[in-house]
């Protein structure tokens, strides 16, 4: 593998495909997305297939994951928000498993590409707008009008609220993508230090222990970040969905 820290994010076409002058090749990114989905659904189908009253270890883990996401959703969007559970659960598992798969050496991190995270964030954003308008009609626009604001500064406040509303998918997607990208680059850079220091002789080999320790620490941190970012993404999804159900609630 090449030594520069960026090459790990390079897309390679595994099965070149082109329809109507649009490149829709099956890339390594597609491969890992398929792997993520197959792994996740495969595990859950397998783990819940026996459905024992006393759960097996695998079933208990599947149920814990379910409970974890269900509680998160119920806490922030109320029991009404449980109708979005399939969306939220799928998002959480997709991001979590994709992040974790990315932690394997030589594997591709799907979520380190902005196009993926933007697509996920826009999916949530569109859901919020469509559901909000369908359920509340024009009452959804109350989201932009905080209560108790004097009429004189209303236009200013509405403009600010609209900007901050449209900033949501941007920050939502940038956070996940930037975390994964930055984390993997840092890991690669520090791991590269070990190799380049080790190649300059005995002193270098002794000195290479320092970046080695750093790399081990960073790997642990990256596992934390991989989980945390999946959690944060899901958490914010829940909060945004809550806005769709109860506009003007804050």
């Amino acid at each position, binding site marked *: 593998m090449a030594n520069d820290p960026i090459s790990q994010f390079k897309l390679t076409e595994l099965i070149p495909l082109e329809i109507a002058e649009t490149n829709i090749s099956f890339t390594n990114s597609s491969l890992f997305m398929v792997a993520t989905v197959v792994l996740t659904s495969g595990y859950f189908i397998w783990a819940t297939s026996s459905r024992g009253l006393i759960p097996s270890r695998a079933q208990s883990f599947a149920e*814990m994951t379910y*409970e*974890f996401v269900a*509680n*998160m959703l119920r806490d922030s969007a109320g029991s009404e928000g449980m109708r979005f559970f399939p969306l939220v659960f799928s998002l959480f598992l997709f991001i979590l498993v994709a992040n974790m798969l990315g932690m394997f050496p030589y594997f591709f991190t799907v979520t380190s590409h902005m196009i993926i995270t933007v697509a996920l964030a826009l999916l949530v954003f569109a859901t919020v707008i469509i559901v909000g308008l369908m359920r509340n009609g024009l009452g959804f626009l109350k989201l932009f009008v905080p209560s108790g604001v004097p009429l004189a500064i209303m236009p*200013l406040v509405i*403009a*600010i*609220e609209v*900007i*901050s509303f*449209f*900033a*949501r998918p*941007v*920050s939502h997607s*940038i*956070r996940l993508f*930037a*975390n994964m990208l930055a984390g993997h680059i840092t890991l690669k850079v520090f791991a590269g230090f070990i190799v380049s220091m080790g190649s300059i002789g005995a002193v270098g080999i002794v000195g290479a222990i320092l970046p080695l320790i750093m790399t081990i620490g960073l790997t642990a*941190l990256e596992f*934390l*970040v991989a*989980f*945390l*970012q999946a*959690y*944060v993404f899901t958490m914010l999804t829940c909060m945004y969905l809550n806005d769709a159900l109860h506009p003007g609630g804050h």
Partner: protein
Amino acid sequence: MARKSTQIDTSAKQDLDKRLKEMNQRLGRNVQPEKDGSPEKPANTGYGNAFRLSSEFISAILVGAAIGYGIDWLLGTTPWAMIVFLLLGFVAGIMNVLRAAGEMDGTLSSEISKRQEGNRDES
């Protein structure tokens, strides 16, 4: 139906907890009982918070600038709308950061009170 099954579950769990406690006492072991309920949420790390706040701030400025640029492009008023909306985006960014910080503060204070309760239980 669902309620019934959970009742059975909790009574069985309480029974098991009680028996476990008795056994541990008999063996002279000091084991903290397992906390039931939802799995614990990950504590907010400083790293995560920092990333959240900065991305919240930057994205609002970017969106403000983009909206201003779009209006300029449509109406040919370069650069005025961009200047105005860049500033508005700045304001929106600060508002977002304050909102996010307020939420973090809420979860933080609830966590602290939970910990204090835990300490009280132990003492």
